Every structure is written in C-alpha cells, then in structure tokens.
C-alpha cells in the first residue's frame, strides 16, 4: 500500500507538526512496515465456514507485552481493527484483523458530524445482511438521532438510500472490505460505550488548533449547516515579522545569555552523580526504608517517627550534607538555633528565619513586620545587631522606606553566606551535633520483655 497520503489531503498542503500529527506519523510508519511486501505481516484471504474472509492478518503476530500494548493503541486509533468486533483492541490469539484504508486515518483530522453518523446508521438498516445488523448501542443512537434530526430526516434518508444504491453495485468482496473499514471508522469516532474515545482532545490543545478548515469536512460530502468554526477553534494569527523593538529585546536577551557563567559538561555530570550518590540511601525507591515503607507494608511507623521530636540517626546525618538540609528540617533549625544560643551568636540565624517568615505573611502585614525586623536586627542600637556589608546595609536602608516582601533580600543573602562558612561548620563539628549523630535508637518497650516482678 502507498505510504501515507494524509498530510496534504484537503489542506493548504502545509505539513502540520502538531503533537497529534507527530504521533499519527509514527503510527503510520509502523503501519507501513507492517504492510511491507517483503518483510511485513502476511495478509491473506481466509476460508471460513461458508465464505471467504478477504484481506486479513492474524493476531498471533505479536509476542511482547509492550508490542501488544502499542498494537492495542494503534487499533484504538483505528489503524487496523478486528473484523468481528466493535471493540478496538489487539489480542494475541487467532482473531483476524484488517488494515484501515488511509482515507479514514486519524491524520486526516476527521471530526464527523452527527448528520454523517445518522446517514451511516440509516444506510445500515437498509442493507439486509446479518453481519450488518445494528448493535444495541447503535440502535439507541439511531433512535436518538431520529428525534434530534426529525425535521431533516427526509434528507438524511435520501442520502442513505443513494449510498446504499451505490454500494449494491460494488463487487461483493470489495463491499465486504469497505463496509468493515467504514464500520471501524465509526468505532473510533462513536466508540462502544465503556471504551476509550481516542479522539478526545486535551482542551488546552483544542483551544490552540491552527487549522479549523480541515476538521469540519463531512465524511460523505454532506453540506454542514452548522457554523464552520467551533468557538474553541480560533484561527492562528498571521506569522508577523519581528519589529525593531522585538529585535532589540532579542539582542539584549542573547547578550544576557552569553554573559551567563556556564560549566563544563564533565563538571556538571560529576556533580549530578555526586548528588544522586549522596541521597540514594534516602530514596525509598532505591534503598528500602527503615522503618518500612507504609505504602508497601501498611505500617506507618516511619511517619510517626518523623513527627516525633526525636530525630533518627539517618535524619541527623543528612544535616551534614549542607546548610540547606539543616534549614529545611524544622528539627534541624531548632538544634542549630539551640547550639548558636549556647554560644550567644544566634542573631544571624534569627534574622534569616525572621526574613523567611516575613515572605510568608499576607501583604497587609508586611510593612509593620519589616519595621520590627529592622528595629531588632539592623537599626542603630538594635538588640540583636547583625553585621552586614556596607553595600547591603545602604540598600536595605532604602528598601525599608518603601517596605516590600523582598526588602531584606541582599542582607539575607550576605548573612546566609556568613552562616554557611562560619556558624554552620561549627555546628557540625560541635559535640551537641556529634551526640545527636551517635544517639542510639530508642529501644521499643514491649510488655513481653518487661521482666519486672509483681
């Protein structure tokens, strides 16, 4: 069979690279390989009980679970279908499948109207063959459509009649194949209740579709009397030439990017390796957690332990990885603060914590909080005076006059660096920290092990 001819069909000839089209193209590549004369799947006419089944392949061609899954998805999109079932899946058994004709491929972006579906179902009732009898859900759909289109039913009926006439003239085998392909098309666009509708689109994508024209053509060439554009299909704006202003912006952007400091890949790679190596014992997916993972063992002891005030050894060990680990663990912060208070040098950490807290407050509270922090830590004669470089101090003085959430940003960064190089390293080397690190796990008290006498 010829490779896909779907891209240029009915459009302005420009290939559409939307995410769906990328996927359709890949599926169609697979189809082409499956249909390859030399290396593809054998397609044959099978002799069944009373008749011949033309142009089918057996489901027993695929072996792996993944191949079966991919095959099922391709069937669900309508690229091939089981000849005796409305439900579009692929099974690894003796079921027979047929390829869909490219005319009906999803890459043609069909969005068939209900009028088309009505014509189709109506036509089916005119063909007196057992294999073409309507399924229950199809009969229900037909009844619903008859009510909905009561006024123009005569028109629909005429179309159905005309098509049935044309079909009768076709070669018997050709009809068998075409009928099944048409049915499979409708199985994709009007799926059996309970089946996945693969034509459903993410609303974010549909509101961005660029070519409304090609999605609204009728399968049977009927005139649509509904508006040709859906409210969610807004036409894309013409591609504009960039203005002078935009070009200036681009130039500035590239210059900023060029000025950025960047590292060699080898250095970055080593850093990534080191990070994952350090944290691997804390990753429950890679190192079985102790106590057990609640999701697996149904025992949530680990969560209760973490909520308690006693930090486990593993948790304390993590604080030594870097100052950020201490700062993000509430118990870590508590211990760090306690240590600094014992040295009468806690003002830096208290300032840092106060500024973090400031950023979490509602905007209404910010001005007064800024004043409080200024008075406590930075004003002349402040009770918990901190030492900041003159540049940051000058900037902060200005900021405080028009206080915002980021008034202390420069000062906070300076203090952070100070803590990192000074107080944090002292904390990690301190006996207080070392004791926490060596602390034995609390022995669980079981009533069974209580050897007291009564």
């Amino acid at each position: 069979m010829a490779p896909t001819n779907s891209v240029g069909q009915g459009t302005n000839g420009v290939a559409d690279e939307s995410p769906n089209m990328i996927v359709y193209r890949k599926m169609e590549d697979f189809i082409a390989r499956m249909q390859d004369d030399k290396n593809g799947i054998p397609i044959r006419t099978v002799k069944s009980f009373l008749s011949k089944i033309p142009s089918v392949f057996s489901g027993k061609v695929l072996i792996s679970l993944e191949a079966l899954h991919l095959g099922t998805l391709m069937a669900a999109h309508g690229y091939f279908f089981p000849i005796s079932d409305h439900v579009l899946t692929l099974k690894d058994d003796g079921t027979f499948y047929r390829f869909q004709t490219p005319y009906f491929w999803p890459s043609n972006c069909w969005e068939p109207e209900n009028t088309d579906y009505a014509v189709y179902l109506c036509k089916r009732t005119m063909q007196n063959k057992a294999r073409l009898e309507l399924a229950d859900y199809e009969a229900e759909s037909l009844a619903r459509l008859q009510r909905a289109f009561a006024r123009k039913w005569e028109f629909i009926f005429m179309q159905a009649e005309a098509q049935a006439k044309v079909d009768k003239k076709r070669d018997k085998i050709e009809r068998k194949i075409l009928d099944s392909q048409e049915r499979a098309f409708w199985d994709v666009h009007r799926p059996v209740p309970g089946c996945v509708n693969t034509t459903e689109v993410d609303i974010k994508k549909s509101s961005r579709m660029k070519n409304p024209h090609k999605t609204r053509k009728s399968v049977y060439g009927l005139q649509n009397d509904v508006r040709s554009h859906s409210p969610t299909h807004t036409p894309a704006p013409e591609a504009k030439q960039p203005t002078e202003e935009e070009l200036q912006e681009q130039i500035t952007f590239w210059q900023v990017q060029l000025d950025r400091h960047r590292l060699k890949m080898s250095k970055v790679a080593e850093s990534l390796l080191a990070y994952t190596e350090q944290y691997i014992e804390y990753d429950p997916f890679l190192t079985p957690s102790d106590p057990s993972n609640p999701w697996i063992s149904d025992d949530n002891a680990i969560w209760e332990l973490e909520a308690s005030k006693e930090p486990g050894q593993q948790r304390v060990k993590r604080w030594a990885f870097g100052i950020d680990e201490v700062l993000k663990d509430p118990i870590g912060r508590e211990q760090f603060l306690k240590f600094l208070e014992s040295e009468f040098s806690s003002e830096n950490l208290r300032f840092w914590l106060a500024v973090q807290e400031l950023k979490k407050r509602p905007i209404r509270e910010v001005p007064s909080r800024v004043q409080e922090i200024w008075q406590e830590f930075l004003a002349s004669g402040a009770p918990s005076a901190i030492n900041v470089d003159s540049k940051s101090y000058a900037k902060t003085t200005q900021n405080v006059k028009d206080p915002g959430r980021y008034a202390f940003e420069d000062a906070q960064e300076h203090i952070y660096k100070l803590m990192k190089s000074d107080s944090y390293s002292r904390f990690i080397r301190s006996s207080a920290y070392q004791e926490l690190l060596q602390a034995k796990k609390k022995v669980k008290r079981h009533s069974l092990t209580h050897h007291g006498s009564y």
Partner: protein
Amino acid sequence: AAAQSRPSALQSGESLATLKNESDSLKKKLEEERAKLHDVELNQVAEKVELVSALSIRTRRVLKGHGNKVLCMDWCKDKRRLVSSSQDGKVIVWDGYTLNKEHAVTMPCTWVMACAYAPSGCAVACGGLDNKCSVYPLSLDKNENLAAKKKSVAMHTNYLSGCSFTNSDMQLLTSSGDGTCALWDVESGQLLQSFHGHTADVLSLNLAPSETGNTFVSGGCDKKANVWDMLPCASVSCRLYDLRADREVAVYQKDSIIFGASSVDFSLSGRLLFAGYNDYTINVWDVLKGNRISVLFGHENRVSCVKVSPDGTSFASASWDTSLRIWA
C-alpha cells in the same frame, strides 16, 4: 568637528535587517560557547555508576471516585493526603493511605486543570476554564459546605493551567493559557508580581526546591522553558536541562514510545525519573545512564499528572480513566 553618529535616516527596512543580523550572530555565538563546554555526555560519565537493580514498583492504592478524566493532583505535606481535580468540575481531597474521601467540592466550571494543596494542609487551590484560581479552606466539620468559604484569588484572561503555593498558604503562583504567570496574595487577592516571558499559552509550572523559594519554572506552547523544565507538550521525549551547563544534558526516549509524555517528576535522590504518557503507561528512567528501567501498566487511558510524595516513599498518577493510583 561633529562626532560620527549613526545615520538616523536609514530606511526602516535596512535597520531591521541589521538588527536581525546582530541577533542571529549573537545566537550563533551563544551556541558556539555552549558547544565548547560540551566535552562529554552524561551517560558516558555515568558508566562508572552501578546499575539500578530491578525495581518492583506496583500499584498500592487505586483512588476511585471521579466521574470523568482526572487532570491534576497534588500531595499534602503530610505525605499521605492528596487533592485531585477533574474534567467534570469536581475537586476531591483524599487520605491516600486509607482511601478515605475527606472533602469534595463542585466547581462552577468543567475542566479543572489545576489544583494544589496548601503547605499547612488547611486549604486547597484549584481552577481551570473559569480563568480563576480559588482557595477553599478545608473544614473539619463534615457538614460544612466548602463552597461557601471559597475565595477567588487569581484572575486570568484565559484558562488556568497550573497553580502552586510558594512559601506558605499566603502566596499562590499561577500559570495560564493567556501566556502569563502571576504571584498573588491569597488574603487580599492582590496581584504581587506578573511574569511575562512566554509568547503563547503557559502549560505548566513548578517550583525549584531552593531554600529561599524564590525560583520557579514555567513551560509553554512557545516551546520555551523559562528557567528549567521538562517540555511535555510538543515532544515525545523527556529532556533534562542543567542550568549550570546551560544546555540539555540528556534525552529520554525509545523507538517504541510514540506517544508524548504529559507529566514528570524525580525520585528523592534524583536518580529516577517517573514520566506519565498519553499511551496510558508510566515509564521509569535512569536519569544518569539514560535507559528505561521499567514500564508500568495499569491505567486505562492517558496519564495526565505524576507526582512523587513529599518523603519520596511513593508517587501518585492521575489519569483520564477517572482514577488515581499510588505506586511504591
């Protein structure tokens, strides 16, 4: 003598061409600078690292209750509760551990594409086609109607695609189909900061796990990731970008994966990448070596959202099959 100044009488067409050339040559120079530092591939350096032994990840919980596609979910800091939102307008708060539905809210719109749990665990935020992001305080009283206490915080001019609480319950970050991201004060509804940098819909956002909580990333339909993000919409591969190397450092793809990834998240150590796809599966990748470790089946329709729990003990997936699954 008068100094030579740029001729101001240039035809506008000529000056545009000059600017375009300047822009293009700067871009080329940037690519050259980046290429100079590309001395090795990540997976080559990772050859010395031990292989990840076979993982036995299975579904541990299935959360059923939504009537239509689940579009988004978020974990509570307590590591067991989650909030999820659906196409049918419902937002549900679950205790994932016991499968209990603790709260349910019906939004006035369909396609609730974004939801987030407040750090305190006392509120949730959500929004979608209503172009807003609203915050609902979670009441302990089961009889109380949550919708009554609803607070509209963010207003956009197009759909809400993402939301996240930044530092505390008081600040909400949103991304929208109108091409912008914005930071809001929850108490007053005031717009604190607006971020214009995308030229098309912003589809997702994520906070960088930095201590000061000042950085976030946003990914958009303009194929730009501002700062650092995975690009889930237009490509069928997942890509890792490193800010320090200022480039893409790894691509995670396979010939047999032809459907796009919708959502990704890292395991706690950063060694594993969990990615949810439109072919209903979740693939687990080795971030360093670049190979796929496992493929997880279970969902019966597209996976819309994947998130690792706060302590890394599990990850949750939300799907168009109306269910959520918790995997460990």
